[in-house]
């Protein structure tokens, strides 16, 4: 066929977070743009950054934006060129009987959090001027049971992960990281600087088609879930349908209404970099903004991306 293949290396297994791409693929949007998309799954034991950076696959997506800042700080030549979620859905969950509704409620609480999430909590505390010693941090695995069994008062997770949240029941209290003043992106797309320079057209085609896919999912939610489950039969349609509504609230915002799906704000990035630098997260050096992200692809596709918000 001769169509360039775009391998999308995920940071996690394929799921509802990629519903737009799945729709685009199934609806033939990539074909129309003249590219061929292949999903490359990630998982707990691999985030895919090294694989993309080494040039094996063209495009990558990780769960959260800090990964890309940290990668850039280690001289890994990748840049973010779009984001899938305008706000990070990372959330601190507690129960009504011992609620954490705003940052100051964290004082005196036991927070169960993954080793890699600890920095997010520390960022939150720093932003809200709460001394770290006032909060007990318990590193736990990917598991919410400790909250229910009373081992901790707070656990963390993604608000989009509606299936998991059902376990917590109706008494759940949410405190979003974003609302607590820590502004991170979720599901950022990245590629190597070389790819961004030399294969900008392919990335543009990818981004335009993906945007169409997300617009399709926004407009045809039941259809979209059907397509998702067809692509990936392990998923449960009902759960995904529920999750989709939440996910779309993150994929589209006022900003996407103006600038189109996938857009991002350099200021938010600069803010993130500053916050991480402050917290001493860059062991090697603080990356420059232009090393972490580029608006080039977004600008070039400004007209081709759906403006929903």
């Amino acid at each position: 066929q001769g169509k360039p293949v775009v391998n999308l290396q995920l940071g996690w297994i394929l799921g509802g977070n990629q519903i737009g791409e799945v729709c685009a693929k199934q609806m033939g949007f990539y074909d129309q743009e003249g590219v061929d998309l292949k999903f490359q799954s990630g998982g707990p034991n691999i985030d895919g950054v090294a694989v993309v950076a080494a040039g094996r696959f063209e495009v990558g997506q990780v769960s959260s934006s800090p990964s890309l800042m940290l990668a850039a700080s280690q001289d890994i030549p990748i840049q973010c060129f779009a984001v899938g979620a305008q706000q990070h859905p990372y959330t601190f969950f507690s129960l009504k009987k011992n609620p954490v509704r705003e940052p100051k409620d964290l004082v005196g609480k036991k927070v169960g959090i993954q080793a890699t999430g600890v920095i997010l909590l520390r960022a939150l505390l720093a932003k809200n001027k709460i001394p770290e010693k006032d909060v007990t941090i318990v590193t736990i695995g990917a598991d919410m049971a400790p909250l229910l069994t009373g081992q901790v008062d707070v656990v963390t997770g993604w608000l989009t992960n509606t299936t998991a949240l059902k376990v917590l029941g109706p008494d759940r209290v949410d405190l979003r990281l974003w609302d607590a003043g820590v502004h991170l992106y979720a599901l950022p797309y990245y590629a190597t600087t070389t790819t961004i320079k030399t294969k900008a057209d392919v990335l543009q085609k990818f981004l335009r088609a993906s945007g169409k896919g997300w617009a399709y999912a926004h407009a045809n939610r039941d259809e979209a879930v059907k397509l998702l489950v067809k692509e990936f039969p392990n998923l449960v349609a009902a759960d995904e349908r529920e999750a989709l509504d939440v996910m779309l609230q993150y994929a589209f915002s006022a900003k996407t209404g103006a600038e189109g799906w996938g857009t991002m704000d350099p200021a938010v990035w600069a803010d993130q970099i500053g916050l991480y630098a402050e917290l001493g997260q860059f062991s090697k050096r603080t990356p420059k903004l232009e090393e972490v992200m580029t608006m080039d692809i977004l600008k070039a596709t400004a007209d081709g991306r759906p403006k929903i918000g």
Partner: protein
Amino acid sequence: MSTIAETADLLPDVSAAEAEFARRKSRETWRRRLLPAAGILGALALWGAAVWIFKVPPFVAPSPVAVFATLTAKFGLLMENLLPTAIEAICGFLLGNVTAIVIATTFVHKKVLEEAFFPLVVIINTIPVVAKAPILVLLLGNGMEPKIAIAALICFFPTLVNMVRGLESVNPQAMELMRVLSASKTEVFLKLRLYNSLPYLFSALKISASTSVIGAIVGEWIGSTTGIGALIIQATYAFDSALLYATVIVGSCFSMLFFLTITLAERLVVRWQAPTGH
């Protein structure tokens, strides 16, 4: 003593002894079939009782009833996901064990290599999958290959250790016999060492049968959308404990079948040993 009378006397007796032997054998076969089932049922009962008595909430451990319901409801899905994992486990099992046997053979024939490289093998064996993952994906891509490689790596070490021991611990008498017959190293290997190593090898294979499945599952965590491993991640992060348990049980049952196959193979291959113990 007249031989004719004796023979007449003797014949039914021999067949009686043989009948008794056959009866004992079939009784044993049945025992070997029923007891494991009993053990598993007992464990299930224990699990159910524990969940019921201690009112264990489903997010800690679901009840066997819920798991069974999921097992039947999603049977097709589970089997679809078992297939790739089973292929990876079996290929990894074969690859890992064959490599281990080859390297053990080399080590036994060139002691210097063993002394130089065994510690290195130990080091390599302890490298966690996360550290190897990028290299594996870069070299082998994102298909079944890296999963097979991980399953093979995890099988490799126990077989190597056991096999080196099995090949080395030959009876000195038999070794002298081979020497007198001026047997080549290959012949000593094929006619003596290999047979001698069989008990060790089968122990290792039994271990591998179980660990290769784990290897395939862990391998799927470096990137896979299908397979028991992928389903486990999905169920874990969706906190679908019934599905998680059902998936784990499917994987475990497969590895048990694998184990039983090895046990059976051993019984077919090793036919010469005098029964021991009373």
